[in-house]
């Protein structure tokens, strides 16, 4: 018998036993929903991880002061902190490094935005732009001259907004006043008052819209500054920071250029610092992949939970199909006998039950996909950026898994049906 005829016959059976069919594929549906959710999360996390690595550099190392919290308030000892000079020494010793970017954050007072506020700004060097560059630039970036001469210049980062605002945004009350100011004013060439010092805005970096901004997907990097200034200028500026008015910086971002050399340079940089300060134990060196993994660990746990629920649901669905198929066989012994008597082979009887179970799994899969996509869309509206990474092949995989579950769980019942003696089956009432 042609497969299409077997499928037609299976559909008749499924239609005839609507309730029984629904019950047996319902748990498959639940399984498929969780598969779609899990796949979307896995894909999103992988995408975010790869994108983060791509943007931030494959050989990225973050070097920070281990003890900046503990030492707060005690007497400042330069030998226990990273300084700008350490960054210069690393750059000089290893000119082959793709990036050596020291940074330093401070909260400072802005007084001429029409209101008084404290904003976080970041002191950087021109090397900052070597990685993570996603911006459209107006004006110029901070250059070596600015650093060497502690120039009072700054670069503003302008948020990209939304191409199409999500529905939840309507309920999002917080308005970033600084970004509102940036959005409505032409800033390049203007002066801005920071801690009563006039800074010239030399450039504006415009982020891509949220939907296209890789950083919205990356979700790493705890501190996104609004304003960038030369690191040397910021060090002399009064403000609130972990390292009050001294030579210490917050950290150095290094990119070796490739992943393989990370461990080597971790050791070499540590040796350079040790030779300068007789101690490198205050350093906290982490490669970027470690940081990413830490940040994704929570999501991974959620994902595992959902996945386990999904697997259990699919298994329950499979057992349900097996149970229904076995029950169907016992209620259709006579039919099996008739089919055998008119010439059906054992294989054809087997196929009949297998195709029926595959169709049940398939239908469960289709329902699961419909509900799953609905859930994904709902979560998207709620602002879950991971759900924006849903792809149609995920639905396809979920349906294949569902159909496969039907297939596997039908093998035993189908073989029972095929082994029935036609004479005995015909006599069965």
């Amino acid at each position, binding site marked *: *018998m*042609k497969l299409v*005829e077997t499928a037609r016959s299976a559909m*008749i*059976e499924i239609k*005839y036993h609507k309730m029984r069919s629904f019950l047996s594929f319902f748990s498959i549906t639940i399984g498929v929903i969780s598969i779609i959710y899990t796949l979307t999360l896995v894909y999103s996390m992988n995408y975010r991880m790869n994108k983060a690595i791509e943007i931030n550099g494959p050989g990225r190392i973050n070097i920070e002061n281990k003890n900046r919290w503990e030492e707060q308030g005690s007497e400042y000892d330069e030998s226990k902190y990273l300084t700008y000079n350490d960054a210069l020494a690393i750059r000089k010793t290893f000119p082959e490094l793709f990036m050596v970017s020291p940074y330093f954050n401070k909260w400072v007072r802005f007084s001429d935005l029409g209101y008084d506020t404290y904003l976080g700004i970041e002191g950087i060097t021109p090397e900052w732009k070597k990685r993570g560059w996603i911006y459209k630039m107006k004006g110029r970036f901070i250059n070596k001259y600015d650093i060497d001469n502690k120039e009072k210049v700054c670069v503003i980062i302008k948020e990209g907004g939304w191409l199409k605002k999500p529905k939840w945004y309507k309920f999002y009350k917080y308005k970033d006043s600084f970004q509102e100011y940036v959005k409505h004013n032409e800033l390049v060439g203007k002066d801005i008052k920071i801690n009563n010092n006039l800074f010239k805005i030399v450039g504006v970096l415009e982020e891509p819209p949220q939907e296209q901004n890789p950083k919205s997907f990356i979700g790493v990097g705890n501190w996104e500054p609004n304003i960038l200034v030369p690191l040397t200028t910021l060090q002399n500026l009064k403000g609130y920071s972990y390292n009050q008015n001294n030579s210490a910086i917050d950290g150095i971002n290094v990119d070796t250029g490739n992943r393989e050399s990370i461990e080597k340079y971790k050791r070499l940089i540590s040796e350079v610092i040790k030779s300068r300060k007789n101690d490198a134990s205050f350093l906290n060196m982490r490669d970027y992949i470690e940081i990413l993994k830490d940040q994704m660990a929570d999501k991974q746990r959620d994902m595992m939970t959902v996945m386990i629920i999904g697997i259990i649901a699919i298994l329950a669905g499979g057992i349900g199909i097996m149970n229904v198929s076995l029950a169907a066989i016992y209620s259709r012994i*006579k*039919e099996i*006998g*008739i*089919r*055998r*008597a*008119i*010439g*059906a*082979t*054992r*294989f*054809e009887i087997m196929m009949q039950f297998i195709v029926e179970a595959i169709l049940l799994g398939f239908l469960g899969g289709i329902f699961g996909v419909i509900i799953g996509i609905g859930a994904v869309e709902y979560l998207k509206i709620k602002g879950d950026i991971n759900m924006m990474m849903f792809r149609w092949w995920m639905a396809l995989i979920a349906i294949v898994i569902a159909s496969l579950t039907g297939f596997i769980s039908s093998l035993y019942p189908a073989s029972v049906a095929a082994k029935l003696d*036609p*004479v005995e089956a*015909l006599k069965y009432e």
Partner: protein
Amino acid sequence: MIRCEKIVKNYTSKSFVYQALKGVDIEVMENDFLAILGPSGCGKSTLLNIMGFLDIPTSGKYYFKNVDASKLNDKERSYMRLKEVGFVFQSFNLLPRLSTVENIILPALYLGTSRRDAVEKADEFMDLFNMRSKSRNSMLELSGGEKQRVAIIRALINSPSLLLADEPTGNLDSSNANDVIDILLELNKKGMTVVMVTHDINMAKKAKRIIKIKDGVIDEAC
């Protein structure tokens, strides 16, 4: 066409062995119409099942067109049931969830015939048997006589060379029973070999030959 040589069929359970056939020898020629007559439980249906490749004898040989049935595997036996033999049963054995035409074309579909060709052929038969108007009806909507006609058409759909009828009139009133026998006679007239099992002497008398079976052995042949 058919040759049964010393056919023995035993049914074995844990405590005893029941001998349904005790060495039956039968020969059926092409275009024959043989009635196997006997009381209930005498082994006549068992013999028919063996002739129709549904059952295997415990010992003895069964030849169909000189093919030794014992040499055939399950798939080949299924093919013989599909292509060479048509079955008509006392209780019709139609599938209740299928319509008249769906029941009829089922063996053709198993043979690999396209649905279109199978339906075309079924339509021709239904015209012949006055069943065309009932082609979309479910089995619940048919009378006993109509059901048996559907069963006969289903048996004929793959143009078999042998028609086996197991008490084909057993569930019918006398008028419908006579109609069914007339159909079998007509088919036989057109060249079909028919073997019919019955316990009704009047029906058996309409066949060309009668074999009586009693307690698993041929009691009398006429």
